[in-house]
């Protein structure tokens, strides 16, 4: 972990034409300097697992920037803009929506990017996250969250640990029925569409 490696990765991000790769380079740079390893979640993870169809607007990272690290980020070229840390050279807006991922840290994937490494939420937990979001309107297969869950399932069905998904939904149904029941419904709706697509 070093500031010079972070600068190197941000310099690579500044000239990288591929948007997804640029997001991952910024994540890798922040991993070099932050005390808590930042984990890519949300739209960037969705893009990674779906072949870039989601088009995220920012880089969501689970992690924490301590007040002492604020000056360090500024020295690396980030400016604080509302809820985001914006890196003007790479045009990437970074947000830290949560400190820890809602899922299994052992399933986090570490990917080589440029001369660094980006930590990304596991595909199973990303799918569950999208299903959780789809509970706002769980019977609607066309809500953005339901389509996002379906996109992950279609693009990565061989890699998703479906037994883990089933177990987590079952546990949520038992421990938190107001969330678990609509999760079950949303998962059923998405899975039905996945299986129909795979039959074609």
């Amino acid at each position, binding site marked *: 972990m070093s500031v010079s490696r972070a600068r190197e990765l941000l310099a690579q991000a500044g000239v990288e034409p591929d948007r997804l790769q640029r997001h991952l380079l910024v994540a890798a740079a922040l991993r070099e300097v932050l005390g808590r390893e930042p984990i890519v979640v949300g739209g960037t993870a969705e893009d990674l*697992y779906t*072949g870039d169809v989601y*088009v995220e*607007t920012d880089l969501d990272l689970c992690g924490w920037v301590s007040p002492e690290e604020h000056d360090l980020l500024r020295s690396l070229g980030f400016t604080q803009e509302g809820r985001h840390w914006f890196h003007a050279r790479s045009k990437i807006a970074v947000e830290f929506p949560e400190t820890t991922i809602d899922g299994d840290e052992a399933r986090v994937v570490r990917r080589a990017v440029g001369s660094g490494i980006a930590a990304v939420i596991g595909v199973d937990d990303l799918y569950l996250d999208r299903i959780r979001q789809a509970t706002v309107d769980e019977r609607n297969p066309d809500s953005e969250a339901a389509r996002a869950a379906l*996109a992950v399932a*279609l693009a990565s069905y061989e890699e998703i640990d*479906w037994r883990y998904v089933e177990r987590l939904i079952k546990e949520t149904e038992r421990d938190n029925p107001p969330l678990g029941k609509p999760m079950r419904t949303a998962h059923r709706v998405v899975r039905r569409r996945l299986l129909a697509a795979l039959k074609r």
Partner: protein
Amino acid sequence: MDALTLGRKLARKRQEAGLTQADVAARMGTTQAAISKIESGRVLPSCLVVDRFARAIGTPMEIVFGVDPRPVSREERRRRVERVLGRDAFNPWDRDPAPVEAESLLADGLTRERFESQRVTSSSRG
């Protein structure tokens, strides 16, 4: 090998044999629902059940364990999604981006007009 991949393989073999799930279920002495669960990956069948399945469809079956699945390319992932959801299925401008997010999108040429025109094209096609 995961349950869904195995289930798909069994379903493909059954279809190649020209049999329905109900046909195979009858030959195996089980229910169509049980076959459906196996083929959709909701149940991981034991080796004995897979053996009975192969006998029921009348075709020997080879299943290789311990081999990593073929890595799926970015293009293949995109193709799979676009086949079902269409192109530009997600419009980032619908998420009401903050000013810096908008700046980020515009820097990559991801303008609002681009997604809106795609939407118009899709709806006029539909």
